[in-house]
């Protein structure tokens, strides 16, 4: 519709905006739970939902575990984990959001109130909290080129290992006794474990950081109660990455060679791993 803007009443403009905003808010009834699909949207174009249930004379308003279960389908950047935690913590504090865990281990963020009069305000807080939290997952806090390099190599190397070892390989998992230390892959052959770490980087700085992380991870694995089961500790070096400068990183590469049980494998010679794990 073409409007005659010259004659447009400004209050009429406001009325149209308000009507449009209000009509955006909708709902779904899910048994005894009301889902309010709010007019708040996230950076990845999802409208935020809050879930409302009346329970023992109070009203619970929650995200239904949708942040923690990634129902908003935000990208997952490992390097952003700590920043996202801080953002969520700040939003929780500002909006006085509590959290609890359900039977499947999913965290629910919520607020409660005792009166219907308070409900819209609580819904407003929880919806704002969800927008802030979901958006914090959406933002690249790290060098995009580095992220791409890391993700591409992780996928290529994982696919390669998957093709070779099928059900015997698991990705991004820790040893049970050091759950904070995750290896890119662990191949299981009978009682033998083969720990595999990928090393890459879009610049020498990132590449050397990855080298240091791999060295530390292998040092810690050496103290594991599963040490006798660890047959080999193997690193796969992305020698096609821009960060790979062997002369510059020679001292750290030498140190890595001391920590692995087999010489590091260059990606261009990746089939060497078949000799190490057969």
């Amino acid at each position, binding site marked *: 519709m073409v409007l005659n803007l010259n004659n447009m009443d400004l209050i009429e403009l406001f009325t149209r905006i308000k*009507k*449009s*905003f209000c*009509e*955006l808010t*909708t709902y*779904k009834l*899910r*048994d*005894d*739970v009301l889902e309010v*699909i709010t*007019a708040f*949207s*996230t*950076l*990845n*174009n*999802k*409208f*935020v*939902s809050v*879930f409302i*249930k009346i*329970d023992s004379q109070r009203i*619970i308003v*929650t995200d*239904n*575990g*949708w942040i923690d*279960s990634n*129902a*908003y*389908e935000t990208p997952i950047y490992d390097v952003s984990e700590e920043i996202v935690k801080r953002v969520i913590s700040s939003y929780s504090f500002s909006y006085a959001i*509590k959290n*609890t*865990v*359900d*039977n*499947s281990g*999913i965290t*629910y963020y*919520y607020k*409660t109130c005792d009166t219907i009069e308070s409900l819209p305000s609580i819904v407003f807080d929880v919806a704002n909290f969800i927008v802030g939290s979901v958006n914090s997952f*959406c*933002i690249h806090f790290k060098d995009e080129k580095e992220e791409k390099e890391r993700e591409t190599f992780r996928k290529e190397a994982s696919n390669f290992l998957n093709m070779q070892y099928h059900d015997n390989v*698991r*990705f*991004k998992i820790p040893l049970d006794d050091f759950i904070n230390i995750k290896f890119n892959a662990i191949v299981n052959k009978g009682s033998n474990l083969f720990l595999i770490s990928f090393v890459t980087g879009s610049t020498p700085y990132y590449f050397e950081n990855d080298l240091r992380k791999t060295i530390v991870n292998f040092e810690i694995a050496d103290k594991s109660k599963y040490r006798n089961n660890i047959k080999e500790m193997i690193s796969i070096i992305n020698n096609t990455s821009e960060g790979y400068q062997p002369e510059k990183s020679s001292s750290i590469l030498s140190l890595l060679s001391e920590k692995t049980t087999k010489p590091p494998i260059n990606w261009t010679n990746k089939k060497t791993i078949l000799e190490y794990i057969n």
Partner: protein
Amino acid sequence: MKGYNKEIRDHYDFFLDLISEKKIVKSKQIILEIKNNNRNWYFGSTEVNHIKKEVPISLLIEQSKRDNKYGIKLRCSTLTCEPFFRFDSDGPAHRNDDPSIPLDKQSITTPHFNHFNAQGKSIAYKTSQLLNENDSDAIVNDINIGLSHFCFETNISMYNNDLPEVVERSPELPIPVCISAFFNGAKFE
């Protein structure tokens, strides 16, 4: 984040062809098994053959153990790494972020399909069946009805024009029954 899929934008005719052209799925049954990296989800997949082009197309199905919501996707690595067409039975509403669409029409609640416009932007839509409450409920509550609807929308069938079906790997896997799993035992102070 309000990005565009450049590969789809640059090969838009190919993208449209992948959706509309006849595609054949060989296996009658698509078996769902617990995902290795997320025990809260079941996953199954099968290959789909484009009748005129030699391109790798995968039909991917995921179902949540928590609330039985499911997603069905088509992926073609020749075109782009992300799924180029998908169906979500539940989950957040999608915003079709386009000023030419009235604001109150920009929210597309689930269940909905997602595809891309010529600019490579993700766009959600509902079919007439999804707009009909009874049909929509049937699709949401029974993954095999949802799969049939997806196959119809994307021109997928078996050689004999039968449709594939989802089956459970183990008898304890509940597929068609949609249970109310809201709050799932969570205790609130």
